[in-house]
């Protein structure tokens, strides 16, 4: 394990090296991929990327929560949450790559 954190810049760099576009244009393309995915999810659509994984939206009902510090009851409003289900390929590659 190398314990690094990659960012948009590293993805843009990979695009730059793979396709030979400028770093600026590569960065814009990374951003528009993320924007299109976010927009679809915000519209309530799921995003299925074959051999990567599926992002889907789940509706959570309202419930009564509790402030763990004070014990006080607080209402939790209904909300939409995003869940990600990795593909088999991703699971296998992550399991194999991190084996000791």
């Amino acid at each position, binding site marked *: *394990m*190398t*314990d*690094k*954190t*990659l*960012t*948009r810049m*590293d*993805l843009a760099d*990979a*695009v730059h090296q*793979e*396709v030979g*576009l400028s770093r600026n244009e*590569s960065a814009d*393309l*990374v951003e*528009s*991929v*993320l924007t*299109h*995915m*976010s927009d*679809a*999810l*915000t519209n309530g*659509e*799921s*995003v*299925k*990327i*074959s*051999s*990567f*994984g599926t*992002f889907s*939206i789940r509706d959570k009902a309202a419930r009564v929560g509790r402030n763990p510090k004070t014990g006080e009851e607080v209402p939790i409003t209904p*909300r*939409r*949450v*995003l869940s*990600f289900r*990795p593909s088999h*390929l*991703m*699971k296998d*590659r*992550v*399991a*194999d*790559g*991190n*084996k000791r």
Partner: protein
Amino acid sequence: MIRSELIEKIAEENPHLYQRDVERIVNTIFDRIIDAMAQGDRVELRGFGAFSVKKRDARLGRNPRTGEAVQVDEKHVPFFKTGKLLRDRLNGK
């Protein structure tokens, strides 16, 4: 939305790029994320979310059909945490 629809949208916005290059661009992004996690790295995409690897300890499992105890080895699994901006957008904020 599926991968090909995502590629289609990006291609429409970038008429100066060949369709096959748009495919390579989109595939490169997802492949790079998997490569990073396969090396135990994190991928943090502010506003969207973060991909990371979680370790699951070895445990004694059970075959649900036979009830037989089986040793399950330690393993690493992919994990995604939604970014704050996207979480807020999903809830109309």
